[in-house]
């Protein structure tokens, strides 16, 4: 029986780059503090055990999600449930930017980051494999979903979490400062604030956003972790630019009330979305095939379809999924 009410802690830490041992100590300490303050679940940022700008250090700091090196975390999760980010090494020796959910001494869920930012100061596709699974999972706190940073900038990832009936969406990030302008928050941070509230209110979800702080190679991480309720109200908020541990209550009765007032989730038509996605995927695939015959012909064909020519890569993913050939698996099993 899932709990209707639980206390969630956001551990806004400053992980040390490439130093898993130091980060393990930091995580264990914060976990103890959260437990002492009455938290049932504690969230740590993206790549909390490893630091972010790892580059060629990725394979050197990677861990198996169910391996002996994480026995300490499974042990600690007997006392308090945990969400934490790390580099996961798969059995195929592919490295993932992953988030683990553990409770009652067991690994319950692994989310592998699907959208790996590779633009501007980001270079994740160079170092990580792509996750291929989104949606929700069951926990002792009800239905949850995990996202990692860039995942949440894709409305489809949030949509899939909501469609899979997640009541609490946990997003962990290592969001750097960029675009400092006139505002109190850098441009990207201001967008995060909107994303968190828009997602929470649209689908009637609790959104727990946990970001890190500190500097790596001169790049600062802005923190600003927060728990936002289904009405878009802030339940708990950590400061910007400095470490913090904040607690807030997730009360699923608020979710019930919000979903009575706003029936977007109930009314969402998955079959309509599916059939339309299939139709659009067919059309862009046709446009791509035509484009391969010759650039000029491709342009003409795309115009006929009212769409720009798609690359092979753009159509590869929906085709694969439709044919059930997704290669990645969720979780360690």
């Amino acid at each position, binding site marked *: 029986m899932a709990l209707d009410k639980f206390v969630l802690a956001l551990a806004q830490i400053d992980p040390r780059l490439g130093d898993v041992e130091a980060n393990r100590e930091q995580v264990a300490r914060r976990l103890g503090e959260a437990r002492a303050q009455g938290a049932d679940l504690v969230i740590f940022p993206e790549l909390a055990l490893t630091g972010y700008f790892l580059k*060629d250090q990725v394979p050197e700091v990677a861990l198996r999600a169910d391996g002996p090196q994480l026995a300490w975390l499974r042990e600690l999760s007997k006392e308090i449930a945990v969400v934490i980010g790390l580099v996961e090494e798969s059995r195929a020796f592919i490295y993932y930017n992953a988030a683990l959910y553990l409770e009652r001494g067991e690994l319950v869920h692994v989310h592998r980051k699907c959208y790996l930012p590779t633009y501007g100061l980001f270079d994740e596709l160079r170092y990580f494999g792509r996750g291929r699974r989104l949606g929700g999972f069951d926990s002792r706190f009800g239905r949850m979903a995990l996202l990692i940073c860039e995942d949440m900038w894709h409305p489809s990832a949030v949509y899939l979490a909501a469609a899979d009936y997640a009541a609490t969406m946990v997003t962990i990030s290592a969001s750097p400062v960029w675009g400092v302008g*006139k505002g109190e928050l850098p441009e990207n941070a201001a967008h995060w604030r909107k994303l968190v509230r828009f997602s929470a209110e649209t689908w009637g979800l609790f959104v727990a956003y946990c970001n890190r702080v500190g*500097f790596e190679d001169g790049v*600062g991480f802005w923190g600003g972790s927060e728990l936002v309720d289904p009405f878009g109200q802030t339940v708990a908020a950590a400061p910007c630019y400095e470490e913090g541990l904040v607690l807030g209550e997730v009360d699923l009765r608020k979710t019930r009330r919000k979903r009575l007032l706003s029936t977007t989730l109930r009314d969402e038509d998955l079959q309509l979305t599916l059939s339309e996605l299939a139709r659009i995927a067919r059309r862009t695939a046709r446009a791509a095939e035509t484009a391969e015959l010759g650039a000029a012909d491709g342009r003409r064909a795309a115009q006929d379809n009212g769409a720009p020519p798609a690359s092979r890569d753009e159509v590869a993913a929906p085709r694969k999924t439709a044919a059930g050939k997704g290669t990645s698996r969720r979780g360690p099993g």
Partner: protein
Amino acid sequence: MKQRDGGNGTAWQLALNLEVARRLIVAFIRNEFLKVGVRRAVVGLSGGVDSSLSAALAAEALGPQNVLGLIMPYRLSSASSRADAQLVVSKTGIRSLVVDITPQIDAYFERFPEADQRRRGNKMARERMTILYDHSVAFEALVLGTSNKTELLLGYGTVYGDMASAVNPLGDLYKTQVWALAHALGLPQEIVQKQPSADLWVGQTDEGELGFTYRQVDELLFLMVDRRYSREELVGLGLAGHFVDRVAAMVRQSQFKRRLPVIAKLSERTIDRDFRYARDWGR
């Protein structure tokens, strides 16, 4: 150039939240120094706004007693530069030392009397660099940089001279933003408002030498580099095509100054090409 602010979202975008910028840069300096186990900084003080701001931010981050400002005049340097540098020392409470570079510069150019102003200017910048690095050992410190984003992009600096440092707190601030932050930190008006000059020869000013003002070029660089406006869009905003082209060429031609020396690739993992680690690796 026409004044554009607000309406089409260009000029005003250079405006910074100065409190956020100050807080981030102070935290950055503290982090970059303490991470490598060094608590002290040496910085060359010219009396200009860049080095004054760099020193003031370091004083806030590390404590004024942990910052050593080196004043390194040449016999042709203006007396007011030195007075302004002293003013920054007393205003910020940092330590200071005067090292006159005239003997070593003049001794060198006695052998090469034909050397032009450019060679002399570069030599002075590099002499000052070696003095800073020497004192960084004596003072157990890191060399703090003073190059701003405008001069780094334009290549308006001496590679391995004034461009050399261990930690540069100003490298992502355009000159106009340096002015705004220096003003917000309460640096003396005579320093913030004076004509920028490398002071390598009598009467030299940056804007005279460059042929445009910092305000003009900062707005162009911001739109071109940060916002990635095309040439066509920039000209459409009223910027002169020859100005856009000249600045774009300066940025391209000085790219080498912003990179490590190029390495001939032979092995499977070449440094900085396919051997890639953060600078903070192991820190």
